[in-house]
């Protein structure tokens, strides 16, 4: 259905053209001397706010020991099934870890599947998996997009620990049972 759009006639200043140009240049000049609002990514990286959910990583405790005990709760809770763990026994030749008994043999997170929901971090009873600051994951092949255990620890680094649960356990073991 055709209908007629009424065209307003131009005012005098509009017909003169120059006032409009001057007004436009004023806006341009104002922004020329204002501070930048854009970042020159990737040369400049944004500051990541606390609580940001980036790439999931495995962290070590302040003594550089593996925290994950491969309880597989993250694998269970992961909505897109991105996590795959092969549980294993901690070998007896690791005196500072052997009393933990269990640790992951392999730990893979498929970043093509991961939806950055953070449920793995929330469910972890050992505070071993954290979604940290890394937000950019790229790769040329599918295999490159799967983070294995070594990569996960490299990304994760070390985070402070408030509990040292297993150290307490070991201390109790060494103190022993006074009745025995």
């Amino acid at each position, binding site marked *: 259905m055709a209908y007629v759009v009424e065209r307003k006639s131009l005012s005098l200043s509009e017909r003169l053209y120059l006032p409009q140009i001057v007004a436009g240049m004023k806006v341009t000049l104002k922004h020329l001397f204002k501070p930048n609002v854009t970042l020159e990514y990737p040369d400049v990286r944004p500051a990541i706010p606390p609580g940001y959910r980036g790439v999931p990583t495995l962290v070590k405790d302040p003594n550089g020991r593996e925290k994950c*005990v491969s*309880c*597989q709760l993250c694998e269970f809770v992961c909505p897109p099934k991105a996590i795959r763990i092969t549980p294993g*026994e901690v070998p007896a030749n690791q005196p500072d870890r052997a009393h*933990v*008994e269990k640790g992951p043999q392999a730990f893979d997170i498929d970043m093509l599947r991961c939806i950055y929901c953070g449920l793995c971090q929330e469910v972890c009873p*050992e505070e071993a998996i954290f979604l940290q600051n890394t937000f950019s994951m790229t790769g040329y092949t599918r295999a490159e997009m799967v983070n294995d255990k070594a990569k996960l620890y490299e990304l994760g680094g070390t985070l402070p620990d408030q509990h040292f649960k297993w150290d307490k356990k070991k201390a*109790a*073991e060494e*103190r022993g049972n006074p009745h025995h």
Partner: protein
Amino acid sequence: MSSAPAKPADLVTVNIDGKEIAVPKGTNVIEAAKLVGVEIPHYCYHPKLSIVGNCRMCLIEMGMPAVDPATKAPVMDAATGKQKINWIPRPQIGCGTNASPGLHVKTSSPMAREAREGVTEFLLINHPLDCPICDQAGECKLQEHSTAYGRGYSRFIEQKNVKPKRTQLGPRVTLDDERCILCSRCIRFSKEIAKDDVLGFIDRGSYSTLTCYPGKQLENNYSLNTVDICPVGALTSTDFRFKMRVWFLKQTPSIDTESSVGVNTEVWSREGVLYRITPRRNDAVNDTWLADSGRMLYKQVKADDRLLAPAIGGNSTGGDMALKAAADLLKAGSVAVVSSGRSSLEEQFLTKKLADALKTQASLVSRVGQGDRLLISSDRNPNVRGALVTGLISALPSQKLAGLAADIDAGKVKTVISVGEDLTAAGLTAAQLAKVSVIYLGTHNNATSAAAKVVIPTLTVFEKSGSFVNQQFRLQKFAKAVPGPAGVNDDLVTLAELVAAAGGGILPFALGQLWTQIAAETKVLAGLSHAALPATGHLLDASAWAGLPFCEGETLHFKPAAVPAAVNA
């Protein structure tokens, strides 16, 4: 599964949480409550073991109808017009309380709840926070009841007890003593069922520790049942330890193939990989037990010597080529059929059709070992009776194929088709095998597969569905737990194609259709179907084979009809 309906005199009416129910005399309150759909939490009670009542978790409130002590007349409650109930002022244990006429029980009254909460708090005092690394997590009774009766935080500020964490009780069982809640199920099992009384508690109070008798080990062939019945993660299977969390595993009902007892099992798998085998309760066959040897059978699936590809003359080939080569050999005539007591009833039915088409009588090889009077019988074939039922054989098999050996020597046989039997182990010499063309259908490499002209790989019991007939003539079914190796056909498909090649007509190979035919052609199986078989099996009419001298001796829930024949028969 009580066969005869109990006489009214044997039933007593009890009232559980306001519901009246008639239960057999001698039923305890836990079992009676189960019948009305109420679960009373318990740790030490086990339906197949003696009652000790030491965990105190099943505390309930109970009362009896009031009677006047002098006149024995019922005391009526004026408010309700019913007989008054005298409630006992303290909680009682449900496992040690047997149903008596008029017994009233409150399973979740404030007193019972409070009592259980107290028990739970005491149990958790010294229990380690091991759930993330504990194999029992997910099927742990303490975990389950702690969510229902625990307070969620601990008031215990003292040091927890320290006990040995990694004791090897035996070759297959690892003990974590800190997790033990001292229910003594494992001790009672060893003493009462396995008759190998090696376990016991030492020390007192919270220092009590489960240990083996000095110089002994928990090494009997039923040791892993203690792991099954352990309500917490104290006893763990060394084989399954740290392999996989149980909530990932899928359960498939199966049958133990190591002997003719036909123990009902549960096979646990994840994504096509088997992780463990546990017993499945069947009160008519195995109660809740399974031998350790039967639990290791899953390893055959991923064994190195598994046959994975069809072969002609030792060279791998395609499935169609191998079938064609086998068909050519069958068409040439003079074929002997060796069937197996390890095949399922359906396979034996098709093997019978194959033997009929080739106008020969199939032979079977018997396997006899020492029975342990519990769950391993002396007949180590799971399905010899299936062969009798399907008519594959009419007399009991012997251990050596003497008749076939004589026929080969006499030149009467040109081709031997073996459905899963190692002919060398059955008494044929390498020279005899060299004289004939062997078609071997089997799961693993052996001397026969090495000597065979045509090898067609088949599936293990975990990779197919079917049924076995056990020593009681109980027809029991098993289901496919994991897919077979790529390129390996279902055994029924292979056999149906061989029957067709031998001129026996087109037979169905899908279980449903095949069973229509089996039920139509076999008298004792009339009206049955694989799909409708109950989980506990179906007892067949065995009168036709009553006179046969079966070799089995007495085992759990089985008494041989006649005197067992000599073991070397």
